[in-house]
């Protein structure tokens, strides 16, 4: 019996290590290639010889990378702030205030969250075109001032877990609804608010479809995700430079993740929904 258990322990670890290797291989090759000289990527070499930074300097010389990053930061940062303004209060109402249509309201949030964005795309595009803002960030950012279904849903799940007694006590102390929200709920739901913010930030940072639809006609307003997808055109054989830009586009997301890992994983597991 003990030998059998030991065997299965070894087998499981071997399988896990093999899988880990397979999952890491793409990252390793992408990063290694980004350090290869221009001619080396044409030879099918697997290891850079010598290691060179030239791809990174070339990337900044040939593409407005700074601008793309700034645009992504503007798009993701502003959207996140607007989302918080609109979605935190309504999530509190959905979680803690009883009213006649609360069941229907939550049903609508779920449906709005799950339906593909394409089902409302045509009329929205027509409206933005009517106001002549296609080519700017307005169509991508402004809707978040009026709530994001996924964020409302996620924040509501967090607010639900806060005991009602705190609210009753705050009400006894003479707090109105805004007082309860800002003095009691928000401080207690900090992890939830952080998770919702990170999800929203990453969603916008990674967004390709939105910028393709609304800002692709104006290269000044390309965020990094769109810029990266368009970058290879003029460098179709220079894989070293392309991999350098790919690495750079991924780096900020990974850094944020390592600082906020705990919040992040909690957020995903609580909702059971992917960001």
């Amino acid at each position, binding site marked *: 019996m003990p030998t059998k258990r030991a065997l299965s322990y070894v087998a499981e670890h071997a399988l896990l290590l093999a899988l880990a290797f397979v999952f890491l291989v793409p990252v390793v090759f*992408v990063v290694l290639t980004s350090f290869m000289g221009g001619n080396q*990527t044409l030879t099918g070499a697997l290891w850079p010889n010598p290691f060179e930074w030239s791809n990174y300097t070339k990337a900044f010389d040939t593409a407005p990378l700074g601008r793309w990053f700034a645009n992504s930061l503007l798009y993701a940062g502003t959207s996140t702030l607007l989302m918080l303004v609109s979605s935190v209060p309504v999530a509190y109402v959905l979680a803690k205030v009883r009213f006649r249509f609360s069941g229907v309201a939550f049903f609508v949030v779920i449906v709005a969250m799950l339906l593909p964005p394409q089902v409302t795309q*045509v009329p929205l595009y027509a409206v933005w075109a009517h106001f002549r803002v296609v080519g700017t960030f307005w169509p991508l950012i402004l809707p978040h001032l009026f709530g994001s279904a996924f964020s409302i849903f996620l924040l509501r799940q967090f607010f639900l877990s806060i005991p009602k007694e705190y609210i009753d006590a705050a009400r006894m102390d003479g707090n*109105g609804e805004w007082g309860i929200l800002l003095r009691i709920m928000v401080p207690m739901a900090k992890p939830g608010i952080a998770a919702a913010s990170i999800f929203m930030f990453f969603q916008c940072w990674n967004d390709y*479809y939105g910028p393709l639809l609304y800002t692709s006609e104006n290269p000044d307003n390309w965020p990094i995700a769109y810029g990266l997808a368009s970058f290879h055109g003029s460098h179709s054989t220079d894989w070293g430079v392309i991999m350098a830009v*790919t690495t750079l586009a991924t780096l900020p997301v990974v850094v944020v993740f390592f600082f906020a890992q705990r919040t992040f*994983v909690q957020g995903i597991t609580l909702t059971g929904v992917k*960001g």
Partner: protein
Amino acid sequence: MPDANPIATVPRARAAAHHTPNTPEAHPKRAGRRRTLRSRLSIGSMVILPLIGLVAFFLYPLCANLYYSFTNYDLVGSPKWIGLRNYDYLFTQDPRVGGAARNTLWFVVILVPVRMASSLGIALLLTRRKRAAGFWRTLFYLPALVPPVASVVGFVFLFNPGTGPINTLLRKFGIDGPLWFNDPSLSKPSLLLLGVWMMGDVMVIFLAALLDVPKDQYEAAELDGASARQKFRFITLPNISPVLLFSAVTGVIAALQYFTEAAVASSVANGKTGIDAGPDRLLGYPNDSLLTYTQWMYVQGFNSFQLGYAAAMAVVLFVVAAAVIAVLLRRAGMFQQKGA
């Protein structure tokens, strides 16, 4: 485990409210009557922005989309009513929409189950890890974090037939690697590999659900002499089935709108960008094998500006997605709760 399924918590929260009498909150109607004007105004101010959003960014465009689908609309002139002509063209004449719908169906039928199965497999392996559990979880989760565009560009490079590391490795073993993203019969399976690599988002949810299964159920089964397979079949699966259902529904809906990975793979494997070549010719490369339904809708609506036709395509997408969502909400008891 119902906590892992967000929708299942609704009836529970309701039930709890009904079982604790003597507080105003337990009786919605009475609480409503007691509410002062001031508190009504505060609540109103909390919901006003999302209410405007609901009308302006959801209800209005849903209805307008239905109207546009019966019109000929190019954004310049006003929409002209043409009855069912868009739907007639969609179902009987459009030469590329059938193939696009079949490609999307491929992702629904193959990508979703394969991603779920591999996520569950790795999550099961990770539940046994006591030491360094966080390290392993992070390692398998990380690929899901990489921006999709970056991971597609990376994968097309890894699998490029000439100088890509994968075919270089295969050559060292004497194997002539295939064309991957440049072969119409392998382009979708190549994206499947990418989808499995990015399965971390689903895996983390499954892992949490698995760790939530009560330990005493396993102990009781062991006393009864249950085998590992029996324990999985009769304890693990029933416990995590709400999470599996939720993840299947969100997976299918994501697959119905499969766009970014396919569009970027087509253009990078082709070696040209959307600016060098028109997107309608570029999308779907190679040979329309990666042309999905939403990409075709994008081309029709926002490159050819056949907005009426794109609206009709959106209506069909809406019907399919709504049916999938109805399955989820029905299982989660949302409809019964609404009637009560």
